[in-house]
């Protein structure tokens, strides 16, 4: 089991979600987050006072998948989230030791 954490542009979220659905992945957790990597923020001016807004809105997707689906899912996200500009986001992969479905306490990949 692997966890995929993908931080993407809010504007790409719908197409990423649709593309993942198309390859049969229908479970995900989505959070609205703020942050920045190499992309710098922007400046806002209110009555002459300048504020640098360097934390920009992003969407974070979290998916936990069986190993055989991980590569396809990553490719799908890469393809659908890319605009080619700075600020497109990142994907992090990590191993997951266990998954438990709360309803029936099922464990392992069957719980996903």
């Amino acid at each position, binding site marked *: 089991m692997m966890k995929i954490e993908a931080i993407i542009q809010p504007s790409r979220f719908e197409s990423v979600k649709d593309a993942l659905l198309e390859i049969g992945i229908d479970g995900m957790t989505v959070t609205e987050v703020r942050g920045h990597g190499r992309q710098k923020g922007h400046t806002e001016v209110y*009555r002459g006072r300048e504020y640098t807004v360097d934390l920009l809105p992003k969407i974070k997707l979290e998916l936990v998948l069986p190993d055989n689906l991980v590569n396809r899912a990553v490719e799908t996200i890469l393809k659908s989230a890319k605009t080619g500009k700075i600020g497109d986001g990142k994907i992090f992969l990590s191993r997951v030791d266990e998954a438990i479905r709360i309803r029936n306490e099922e464990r392992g990949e069957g719980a996903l």
Partner: protein
Amino acid sequence: MKRMGILCCCILTLVLSALPIRSQQPPASSQVTSPAASAPSPDAAKAVAEKLNQLDQRVTAAQSNADNAWMLVSAALVLMMTGPGLALFYGGLVRHKNVLAIMMQSFALMALITVLWALVGYSLCFGGDGHWIGNFQFALLRGVGVTPNADYAATIPQLTFMVYQLMFAVITPALITGATAERMKFSGTLLFMTLWFLIVYAPMAHMVWGKGGFLNASLGGRFPTLDFAGGTVVHITSGVSALVCALYMGKRVGYPKQPMPPHSLVLSFIGACLLWVGWFGFNAGSALSSGGLASSAFVATHFGAAAAAMSWSAAEWLKNGRASALGAISGAVAGLVAITPAAGFVDPLSALGIGFVAGAFCYWMVTKFKAIFGYDDALDAFGVHGAGGTIGALLTGVCARMVINPIYGDGKAVGGFDGHWGQVGNQLVGILMAWVFAIVGTFVILKIVDAVTGVRVTEEQEIQGLDITLHGEEGYNLEA
């Protein structure tokens, strides 16, 4: 003049209609033309006189009703400037944790000043004919009824005049809350505003607008200051007092390092537009009648606002490369402030000129001047109202015209453009009085309030926000 014209027409009609009555009279001795026969019979003359009298009363009543209708609407428009206008404008400019606190200050003043006005306020502003302040003639609104007060507005019930002037007394202290925003105690605000209204507003209003007032232009003032709708009384007093408050209270925690952007410019936008509309009641209503002078003030008001919105935006565009929404609405408010003293004295082109100057000047005051001196006038009550009011009052002396408002009598020069440059000196006296009164009065009042209730909230309260700590509520309950 108009009234005279109507009266003349009525007399003419009456005389014409009276002629057939005479011809219908049976000729006493048909062939003989004696001098007695050509003279009107005493009965007919009496009937004509009675009819004339009735018509005169009806014309007066019709004019009174027309003026009263406009003045009641104007009073409502001016109240709308405080709530929701100013409440939304200021509410959007603060951080979301303080939105209710700032709105509540405006709303509380709508109630507080109204009660004070009924008790002594109206009387202190408009009672008697003293130089500095009114008397207790109208205390508890004694004698204030439907009969007009001929000194101020001869065609409308004094009740209307009283309630209209009340709305000015409500918004003036509310403007100060822009400087004390996000850090003043609610109890301190109430005490401060009560004292401020009695010690600063009432004398200034009487001096400029009251009969016999030191600065009154039409009712026997020593230094006749032209202030059509409150450039000195409303905007300089509140704006300068706001600066004193900002200096006395000190900066908000984290200012200027921590970002404090407006939490909702959408609210501010709606508020500014309501202010613009309400200002027609403020300025055109100050004609105290619904005739040509009201139209003149209405047009000047609109032109002043538009020109200032453009000049503030242009200045900003040149400086930052962009014109912001906040800049455009701030400019419009600055223009409305500056045109306030001038509204009933200047022609439309002068109004455009005053607006252009005010927009650029207030932009400079708010962005540069404030930054140089580093005071925390949170929502720029001084930068817009103090500065805009001062420049407006000064330019009124330059641009006032006798063709618009012959306040000194027919054919007598009013402002600089008429050749009466001495008026600029009079304006300076008025401006100086308003500044001195506001500075000294506000400082003394702040000392008193500090000793009684305290002025400023604690640092923890300020960080947590005034909505929760002072009012036990939140403006935006996202979990609900």
